[in-house]
């Protein structure tokens, strides 16, 4: 083997003290594997919850928002340019629906960032079966589009969602509603709208999301049917749901859509602020834990190198007497740190991956969560390696510098 002489000396010191070398490397290994494992677990769960939130919420929701009365409205109403003072302004009920929704949909479909778009009518209703009444809301949708965007099929526990288009006057209800009203596929359900309209509908499917409040209140019907139930015309749409190719750009695209349409476009981040807050808290906890682990691993290396230098101080003096410069001595000891880091790093990467893989096979079986959601994300491995090597270099630097400052005469004189 042909190495630089510094490297050769570093390796000899490492191999002549195998036990200490292995202990130090084990510290690094532990740090790196925990780093990978915890990052994978966190990203896995975060991704899972993010995905889960998208089964109910679109990336962007476009709707018309009530506004507080202002001077501009008053001037338009009075048709003059006078300055009025408004005392105690109130929220104004806008027509609630969107004007020309299908025009907006057609226009937005041309946007390359949008992967799915569907209009929806929502109305508050009361479900009745026998003598039991249950408040809830009915969503009028194009069920095939809805399914493409939100995987309604994945939540179906009975019946078929496609029957919504095949069977007249049909409805899909949440499992909570079905249980409370003891309804099965094929049964009839009475739906009463806020305006007093009363219709009897046929249950063609039952769905269960993991969200209880949804399952207890929500139902799907054809958009045209819901429009007529709540007494609105065919152009009445309460919101347009939009999914993007890259949901991380939701807030940017939402702002674009707002300026184009003039309606309120709410992105999923705003709609799920507590989810994001949860992510942040978990990230802080995780990073503290990782920081502590790496710190401990760093101290291990620092200690062991310090001990080596204490033991080898005479040899360092001899090397310097023979013409090794301070820089050469630094390099000898820094290289020992780096070798420990690389050894611990490689084993740590493997161990981290194995641990992540093993845990990802643990069966959980809670709701739609069958296995622990672990992500296998290459940047985690690169980050872990980088942090590991940085820690070892930082931990090795101070002992190495101390070694380089050894004065050969003082030591050799004894």
């Amino acid at each position: 083997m042909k190495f630089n002489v510094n490297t050769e000396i570093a390796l000899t010191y490492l191999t002549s003290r195998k036990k200490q070398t292995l202990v130090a490397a084990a510290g690094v290994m532990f740090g790196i594997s925990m780093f990978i494992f915890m990052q994978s677990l966190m990203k896995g769960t975060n991704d899972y919850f993010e995905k889960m939130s998208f089964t109910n919420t679109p990336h962007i929701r476009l709707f018309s928002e009530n506004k507080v009365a202002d001077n501009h409205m008053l001037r338009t109403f009075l048709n003059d340019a006078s300055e009025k003072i408004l005392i105690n302004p109130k929220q104004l009920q806008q027509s609630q629906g969107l004007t020309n929704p299908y025009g907006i949909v057609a226009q937005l479909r041309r946007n390359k960032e949008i992967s799915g778009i569907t209009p929806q009518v929502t109305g508050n209703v009361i479900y009745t079966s026998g003598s039991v009444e249950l408040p809830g809301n009915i969503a009028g949708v194009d069920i095939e589009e809805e399914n493409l965007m939100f995987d309604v099929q994945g939540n179906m526990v009975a019946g078929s969602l496609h029957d919504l288009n095949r069977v007249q006057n049909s409805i899909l209800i949440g499992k909570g509603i079905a249980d409370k009203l003891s309804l099965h596929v094929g049964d009839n359900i009475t739906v009463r709208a806020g305006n007093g309209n009363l219709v009897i509908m046929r249950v063609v499917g039952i769905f269960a999301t993991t969200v209880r409040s949804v399952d207890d209140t929500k139902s799907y019907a054809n958009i045209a049917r819901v429009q007529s139930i709540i007494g609105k015309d065919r152009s009445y749409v309460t919101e347009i749901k939009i999914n993007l190719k890259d949901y991380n750009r939701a807030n940017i695209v939402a702002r674009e859509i707002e300026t184009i349409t003039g309606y309120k476009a709410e992105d999923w981040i705003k709609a799920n602020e507590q989810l994001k807050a949860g992510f942040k808290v978990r990230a802080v906890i995780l990073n503290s834990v990782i920081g502590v682990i790496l710190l401990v691993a760093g101290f291990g290396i620092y200690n062991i190198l310090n001990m080596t230098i204490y033991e080898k101080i005479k040899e360092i003096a001899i090397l310097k007497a023979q013409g090794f410069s301070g820089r050469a001595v630094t390099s000898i000891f820094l290289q020992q740190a780096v070798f420990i880091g690389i050894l611990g790093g490689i084993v740590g990467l493997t161990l981290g991956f194995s641990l992540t893989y093993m845990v990802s096979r643990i069966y959980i079986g809670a709701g739609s969560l069958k296995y622990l959601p672990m992500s296998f994300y290459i940047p985690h491995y690169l980050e872990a390696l980088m942090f590991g090597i940085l820690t070892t270099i930082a931990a090795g630097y101070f002992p190495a510098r101390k070694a380089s400052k050894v004065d050969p005469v003082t030591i050799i004189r004894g």
Partner: protein
Amino acid sequence: MDNIALKASGINKYFHDPVTMQVLRDINMEVHKGEFVSIIGKSGCGKSTLLYVLSTMDTDYEGTLTINGTNTTGLSLNQLAHLRNESIGFVFQFHYLLPDFTCLKNVMIPALRLGKYSYAEVEQRAYEKLKMFGVEDQALKKAGKLSGGQQQRVAIARALINDPAIIMGDEPTGNLDSKNTGIVFDLFRQLTVEYKQTLITVTHDEDFARRSDRIIEMADGQIRR
């Protein structure tokens, strides 16, 4: 001028611990290329201290030191390290090998540091040096496993590996029997004659001193003669 290997002028050195005392007093000396010089004197008179100053390892002194025409006083530590590596071979009073390395490696390390020869050439040369001192059969043993006398001979071989212009020894034969002392002396003599290498050795061995070219006698931090 160009015949002078080493020149020290007005060297004074003090130790401050526990109390300030002067160890070297106004040392002036010149050593010619190819000269074989012995330094003798009572224990504690400052021989080792002087040798450390002459070897450039100790930079805490007054006066000037010139080696091969280069004024070394005031050079940086890195420059001095390179100078030692290339031009000075040093044999310590207590042999001082690196115990984790084989004898061969111990001899090779200064040459690998210098980087003048390839690894294979260095290995070859190190082997020859060990052979000169009759320890080639110990080449692959860990240095820590050798007897004192064997270690000393390996240490001398190591001092010669870079063909240094000046070889300094602090009682280099202190641990050797008369037969091996004879071998080492003859070798030193050969180096000065054939290769014009300069030798400065501190010794207690009167016979060894008498057979060298010149004796410098020290007493109480001064050169007597």
